[in-house]
């Protein structure tokens, strides 16, 4: 680089000769030099900016191109990733507590038609009507020829039907794969499982959604892809459920009942081992809901959960247990039981106008099922404490069991809790609850006084729930219930070796127009076994039963629900692994020997 001198001698000499200041020449040269330096720096900065701009433009072009490509192309499975269960993206299975399948999926095909591709619609319609007897050839032909380009024909096909449709050989008939819900056990546990149907449907797939029961309650969980189709274990035991259903069905027929329900529950964990409601249905072919009339007449009606009934004398034990728990009375204390009892304009009578009075012990009030006796006990407790106790047992809200129907079945509670309500509630009238409520409440008595929430899901541990009564009260109440079976109204319920304890309840059915029927009853037997160390609670309810072996028809629970429950216990207890035991001698019998 040639460096220009700041004071070139020639210029200075000539400037001096002209008499000018030579310093101006130096200043001019410095200015030129600075201008040159500035131009160079600017050019370099511009070059750098350009380079950076190009780099950024390229980066954004690459990212934008990639995004566009991802958005525009069909998604595809990663081919090399190792894959496990995610290949299977169906609805999760439901199993019983031992892993036996209650609901699973089966791959079938659906049949649809594209009439524009159809060669001979008339023949296709008549052939289809021949394969599927429930279809009408004329209607099919009308749908094929009215100009539409797509028609659903069947939602599911059996392999044989599919072959038959193949054999028609028309290019306008097409198949799409379908995953369909299958209940291999048929009617067993129908009310628990509910049913499933198709939601949004496409040609290549359709979503399977639960329509009732636990299928609907757990719908989100069963369809959650994150759980990878892991089966959900229910608390039901398939064998126990089948046995209960068999015995209950036979009992319902024998007692000429319109309907029946049985709930078997573990008292510590709240697991429901068996829930039967009759009449039942096949969830594979779920019937339509009734559009008019009483929904309780439909086989879809789950009596165990939705059937809100006045449960009759089964409620008496709650008043007795509460009185003992509050320390107001003891099991042997005497109470007024002089029937009939006049309260205001109401007259409280005993069954068949008996009079068990004038005085009865609390235990005998339960054993003999005295309305008047328990009314006096309830009056001692008072309305406020009675309501609080029933509330703690879960009688004031819907049961938390995992069925969609449960939330809608609220107990019927009187709005004003007058003293007469206190009296009638103590013997199970004026307030209605479902057998499931009763099962939960009896479980609390049986397990030493802990409130349990009934559940249909398998749980390993006992529930950590608040105590509603002392263990001593629980023992006293179980002793009273055992008395009902050994010496009271449920003598037919004594199963040798299993020390059944329980309480019968007979309630007249309310008329839709008001008042009560006298020849239509709901019979309930709420039992727990074995009394020395209760493990299970069994509730059996029969709707309008009548026992006709005697000269006059008998409609009390002791003659109808109790023998059915006893047979269920006799059959089911060995299946549950309960060994028959010799009953320990009563403690007072031992003291008698001492004296």
């Amino acid at each position, binding site marked *: 680089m040639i460096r220009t001198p700041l004071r070139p001698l020639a210029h200075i000499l000539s400037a001096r000769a002209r008499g000018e200041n030579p310093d101006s020449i130096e200043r001019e040269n410095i200015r030129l030099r600075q201008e040159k330096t500035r131009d160079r720096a600017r050019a370099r900065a511009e070059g750098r900016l350009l380079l950076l701009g190009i780099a950024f433009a390229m980066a954004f072009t690459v990212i934008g191109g990639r995004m566009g490509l991802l958005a525009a192309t069909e998604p595809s499975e990663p*081919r*090399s990733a190792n*894959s496990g269960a995610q*290949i*299977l993206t*169906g609805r999760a299975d439901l199993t019983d507590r031992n892993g*036996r*399948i209650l609901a*699973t*999926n*089966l*791959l079938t095909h659906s049949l649809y038609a594209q009439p524009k591709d159809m060669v001979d619609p008339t023949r296709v319609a008549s052939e289809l009507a021949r394969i599927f007897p429930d279809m009408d050839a004329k209607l099919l032909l009308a749908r094929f020829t009215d100009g539409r380009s797509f028609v659903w024909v069947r939602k599911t096909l059996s392999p044989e039907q599919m072959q038959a449709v193949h054999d028609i050989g028309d290019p306008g008939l097409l198949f799409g794969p379908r995953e369909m819900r*299958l209940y*291999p*056990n*048929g009617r*067993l546990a129908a009310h628990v499982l509910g049913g499933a149907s198709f939601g949004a449907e496409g040609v290549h797939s359709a979503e399977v959604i639960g329509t009732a029961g636990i299928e609907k309650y757990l719908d989100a969980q069963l369809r959650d892809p994150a759980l990878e189709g892991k089966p959900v274990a229910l608390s039901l035991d*398939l*064998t126990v459920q*089948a*046995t209960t259903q*068999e015995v209950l069905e036979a009992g319902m027929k024998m007692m000429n009942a319109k309907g029946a329900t049985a709930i078997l529950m573990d008292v510590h964990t709240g697991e429901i081992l068996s829930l039967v409601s009759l009449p039942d249905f096949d969830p594979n072919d779920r019937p339509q809901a009734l559009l008019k009339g009483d929904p309780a007449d439909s086989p879809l009606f789950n009596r165990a959960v939705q059937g809100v009934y006045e449960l009759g004398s089964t409620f008496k034990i709650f008043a007795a247990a509460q009185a003992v728990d509050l320390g107001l009375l003891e099991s042997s204390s005497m109470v007024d039981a002089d029937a009939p009892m006049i309260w205001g304009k109401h007259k409280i009578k005993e069954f068949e106008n008996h009079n068990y009075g004038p005085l009865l012990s609390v235990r005998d009030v339960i054993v003999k099922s005295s309305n008047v006796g328990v009314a006096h006990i309830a009056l001692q407790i008072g309305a406020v404490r009675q309501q609080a106790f029933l509330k703690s047992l879960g009688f004031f809200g819907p049961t938390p069991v995992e069925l969609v129907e449960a939330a809608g079945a609220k107990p019927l509670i009187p709005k004003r809790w007058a003293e007469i309500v206190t009296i009638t509630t103590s013997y199970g009238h004026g307030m209605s609850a479902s057998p499931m409520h009763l099962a939960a409440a009896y479980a609390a008595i049986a397990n030493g006084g802990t409130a349990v929430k009934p559940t249909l899901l398998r749980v390993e541990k006992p529930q950590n729930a608040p105590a509603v009564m002392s263990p001593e009260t629980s023992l006293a109440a179980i002793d009273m219930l055992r008395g009902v079976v050994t010496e009271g109204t449920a003598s037919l319920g004594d*199963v*040798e*070796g*299993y020390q059944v304890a329980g309480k019968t309840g007979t309630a007249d059915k309310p008329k839709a127009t008001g008042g009560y029927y006298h020849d239509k009853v709901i019979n309930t037997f709420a039992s727990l076994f074995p009394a020395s160390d209760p493990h299970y609670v069994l509730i059996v309810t029969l709707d309008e039963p009548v026992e006709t072996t005697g000269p006059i028809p008998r409609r009390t629970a002791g003659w109808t629900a109790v023998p059915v429950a006893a047979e269920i216990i*006799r*059959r089911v*207890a*060995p*299946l549950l692994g309960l*060994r*028959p035991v010799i009953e320990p001698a009563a403690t007072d019998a031992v003291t008698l020997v001492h004296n």
Partner: protein
Amino acid sequence: MRPILYALSFLAVIGLAFWAYRENYATQKLLRQVEALQTEIGTLREALAVQRAEWAYLNRPDRLRELSTINFDRLGLFPLEPTQFGQIDQVSYPVPPAMFLQDSLDGILTINLSGTLADPDAPTDDRAKTTEIVDSHEEQVP
């Protein structure tokens, strides 16, 4: 020096290109294999689900109950009863081996005695007999 370097790098490029070509095809082959395997796994899973469903359907309690009723002559199956629970002392112990007696009496008993001991049908009778013989034997000794 420089031409050799050029020749070597050229050869390296050819070698690497050949390696990349082979790797590419090997990878594609493996990907196809994985795809085929995944399809097979899917099919097998489907078949498994169908068979599980069929197993559950064939083992449904209704059908088993019916079958046990039909085949009652051969199977004689009853529902489980409370009386079918046994006590541990109801389980019979194995018959004590006759060898024990034989050992203790070894050298004392005659040959025909060991013949009677071996009879498995009447062990109690045998024992009675042996004690009888032992007694008589002892009586003879003094």
